C-alpha cells in the first residue's frame, strides 16, 4: 500500500510504502518499506506555509494548497525521488485564511481552490502552462467575521454542482456552471462570466424543547448517489456533533438530524458502496463507523419540566476503530472501498490503516510529524510475503555459489600474504 501524508512540522509531504502487518511501535516489528519526503524543497516548504490540502491532478501533477494562500504545483513524473516544483501561485488572501478544499476539473483544464473566507480561485492551465492569472470568485458576498465557509465540495454525480456551508452559514447547493458547458479562455478572465445559481438553501432545524437555537457549523458535506429527480440528497457533519441528512425535494430542513458526538466532528466519509454507512472522527480520539439508516429511537432520554420526558433518536454505532492506541485527534482520513481499507492520520503523528469491516489494524507507521491531510495512492497490498520465498531461495543459491568461489580466492590471498 502506498500513501501520501502531509508533514505539518516541515511543510512537506511524505510518501509511505507499507504492507499489511507493519507496526513501528513494536520492537523488531515489521517496518515500512519506504518513508521519504515527496516534494522538492522550495521557498514555501516551512511550517508557516504548511500543506493544508493536497490533490492529485490527472496523475501528472500534484497540487498542494498551503497556508498563506500559496498553491504549489509539482511534477509527479519527475525522475528524482522528490517531485520537482513546477510553479507556485500566490493567491491574494489574508494570511489567516485557510484553504478548505481543492476541486479538480481535469476535463476542463482547471482547478478550484476554496478558502474559508468564501473566496474560490479558479486556476486555468492554458496549454498546460501556468502563466494564466487565477480568477477570484466570491461564493457569498455578505459573509461577516463570524462566518466562515469551512466546507466546499463538488458533486461527483452531476458536474457543475457544488455544495458549501460552514460556520454560521447553512448548507447551500449551487450550480457554478452547466453540465455540458464548453469552457473558453475568456471564461477564465472575468468573474462576470460565472453566474452562481443557488439550487437549494437549507434551513436550520427547529429550536429544541427549551427554545434554544441550534448553532450552525458545517465541517463536512457528502453528496449521496441516490438523489431524487431534480434534487439532491446530502449528508452533513457539524462541529457541534450532528449528522444531518438532507433531501432537497422533500424539505429545506434536514430530514434527519442526529447528535452523535458531544465534540466537533472533523472528518466524515462513506464506509461502503451503498452509502448507508459513514466513518466519522471527532477532535478527540473518537473514530467510529455509523449507520445512516439504522436509527436508535431511544438513544437519549430527556427529562424536562416543561416538555415532559421524551427520547431523542440517534444513529446506530457500528463499531470503533480503536486498535493501536490512538491518542490524538484525527484530522484526515481516506477510504478505499475497493481494498476495504481506511487510513487515518492526525495529531499523534501516526498513520494507521484499518480494515473497514473487521476494524482490525493493518498497519501503523510513526511519521514523526503531525498529519493534516493524507491520500491513498495505491491500495493494493504488495504481497511481498508471497514473492519473497522464491527470490530468497534463488538468492541463497547464488550466494552459495559466490561463497564457494570466494573461499578459494580468500585462501589464495592468504598464501600470497
Amino acid at each position: 500500500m502506498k500513501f501520501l501524508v502531509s508533514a505539518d512540522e516541515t511543510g512537506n509531504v511524505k510518501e509511505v510504502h507499507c504492507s499489511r502487518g507493519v507496526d513501528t511501535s513494536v520492537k523488531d516489528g515489521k517496518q515500512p518499506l519506504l518513508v521519504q519526503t515527496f516534494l522538492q524543497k522550495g521557498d514555501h516548504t516551512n511550517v508557516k506555509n504548511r500543506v493544508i490540502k493536497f490533490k492529485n491532478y490527472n496523475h501528472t501533477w500534484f497540487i498542494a494548497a498551503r497556508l498563506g494562500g500559496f498553491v504549489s504545483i509539482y511534477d509527479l513524473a519527475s525522475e528524482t525521488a522528490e517531485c520537482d516544483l513546477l510553479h507556485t501561485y500566490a493567491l491574494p488572501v489574508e494570511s489567516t485564511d485557510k484553504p478548505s478544499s481543492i476541486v479538480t476539473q481535469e476535463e476542463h483544464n482547471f482547478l478550484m481552490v476554496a478558502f474559508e473566507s468564501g473566496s474560490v480561485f479558479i486556476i486555468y492551465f492554458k496549454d498546460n502552462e501556468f502563466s494564466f492569472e487565477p480568477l477570484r470568485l466570491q461564493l457569498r458576498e455578505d459573509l461577516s467575521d463570524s462566518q466562515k465557509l469551512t466546507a466546499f465540495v463538488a458533486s461527483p454525480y452531476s458536474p457543475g454542482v457544488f455544495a458549501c456551508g460552514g460556520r454560521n452559514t447553512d448548507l447551500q447547493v449551487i450550480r457554478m456552471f452547466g453540465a455540458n458547458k464548453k469552457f473558453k479562455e475568456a471564461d477564465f478572465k472575468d468573474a462576470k462570466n460565472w453566474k452562481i445559481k443557488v439550487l437549494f438553501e437549507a434551513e436550520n432545524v427547529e429550536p429544541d424543547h427549551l427554545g434554544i437555537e441550534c448553532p450552525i457549523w458545517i465541517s463536512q458535506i457528502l453528496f449521496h448517489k441516490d438523489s431524487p429527480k431534480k434534487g439532491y440528497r446530502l449528508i452533513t457533519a457539524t462541529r457541534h456533533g450532528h449528522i444531518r441528512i438532507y433531501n432537497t425535494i422533500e424539505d429545506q430542513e434536514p430530514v434527519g438530524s442526529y447528535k452523535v458526538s458531544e465534540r466537533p466532528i472533523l472528518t466524515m466519509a462513506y464506509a461502503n458502496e451503498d452509502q448507508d454507512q459513514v466513518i466519522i472522527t471527532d477532535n478527540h480520539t473518537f473514530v467510529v463507523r455509523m449507520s445512516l439508516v439504522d436509527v436508535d429511537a431511544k438513544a437519549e432520554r430527556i427529562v424536562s419540566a416543561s416538555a415532559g420526558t421524551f427520547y431523542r433518536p440517534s444513529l446506530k454505532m457500528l463499531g470503533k476503530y480503536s486498535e493501536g492506541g490512538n491518542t490524538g485527534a484525527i484530522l484526515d482520513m481516506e477510504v478505499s472501498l475497493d481494498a476495504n481499507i481506511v487510513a487515518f492520520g492526525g495529531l499523534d503523528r501516526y498513520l494507521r490503516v484499518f480494515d473497514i469491516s473487521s476494524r482490525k489494524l493493518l498497519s501503523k507507521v510513526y511519521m514523526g510529524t503531525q498529519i493534516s491531510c493524507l491520500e491513498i495512492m495505491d491500495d493494493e497490498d504488495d504481497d511481498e510475503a508471497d514473492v519473497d520465498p522464491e527470490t530468497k531461495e534463488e538468492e541463497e543459491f547464488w550466494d552459495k555459489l559466490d561463497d564457494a568461489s570466494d573461499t578459494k580466492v580468500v585462501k589464495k590471498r592468504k598464501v600470497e600474504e
Partner: protein
Amino acid sequence: MDEAKKTSEILKGIKNKHRRQKVFAAIQAEKSKEKHKLRAARAKEERENPQLKEERLANNVPETLETKRVFDETIATEIEGEDEFFELFNKSQRDPKVLITTSPNARKCAYEFADILMEFVPNVTFVKRKREYQMKEMAQYCNNREFTDLIVINEDKKKVNGLTFIHLPEGPTYYFSVTSLTTTERIKGHGRATLHTPELILNNFNTRLGKTVGRLFQAIFPAQPEVEGRQVITLHNQRDYIFFRRHRYVFRDEKKVGLQELGPQFTLKLRRLQKGIKDEIEWEFKADMERDKRKFYL
C-alpha cells in the same frame, strides 16, 4: 520453598493458637539470625576482596518498571521539523514573558500558589482573574501584549489541583494536575532563594510527547541563567510524574558538591495536551493508560 513447607507443616500440627504464634515467632527469629550471619560473613569476605562486591552488585541489578519499559520508537527519533517553540528558541531574541492568573472565583490557596510560582518564574505578572473572560480571550489579550506564556492556576475545594500552560502565540495548551505541594517553610533546613534566574534541569523527557513537554519548561525560563545565583530548578520525570524541586549548589572542594533545598516541592502529571489554544486534542490521559504499568508516555 522446602523450608516454607516445613514451617507450615509444623504449624499445622499445633492446635493452640498462642503456642502456634510463639513457635512461628521463634522460627522467624532463627531465620533472620541465619540471614544476618550470612550477610556478616559475606561482608567480611568482601571487605578483604572488594572485587567480589563489585561482581555481586553487577550481577544483581534489580528490575524496575523503568528497565522493563515497553518499546517506544519515538525515543530514538529526533524532533522533526519545526514545532511551535522553534522560533522562540532559534530565531527571535525575545525573552519569555509570563502572565499568571487563577481560575474564576479562586480561594486563598490559589493566590498563595501564585505567590510561590512568581518567586521563580522570571519576568512574570500576576493578574486577578475576571470572571467574564474565557481562556481564549485571555490568550488573545496576552498575545496583544507580547506575552509568551499564560499560566492559569486551577483551584477546587480550597486546594490547588491543576495548572494550565498556554504557550503563545499559537499554542500548544497543556493541562497538568498538581499534587503533593510542600511549601518552603515545611522543608527542613531550607535556604532562602535569591532573585537570580535559575538554571534548569530537565530529566527523562524522552518521547516525542515528553520533548513537547520539556520544551514548554525550556521556553518559560530564559536560555541564559544567572550562574552566580547557583540556583537550579529540576523537573524530573519518572513514570510520567514530573517532580519539581529547587536547590542551591556549592562546590565545597574539587570532589564534593553541597546541595541546599530552596523549595517548594510539587508534582505535576500531564493530563491533556491540545493543539493551538484549547483546540484539538493531541494527547489526553485516560485511566486505562495505567493498565500496562510498563508503558510510559513522557
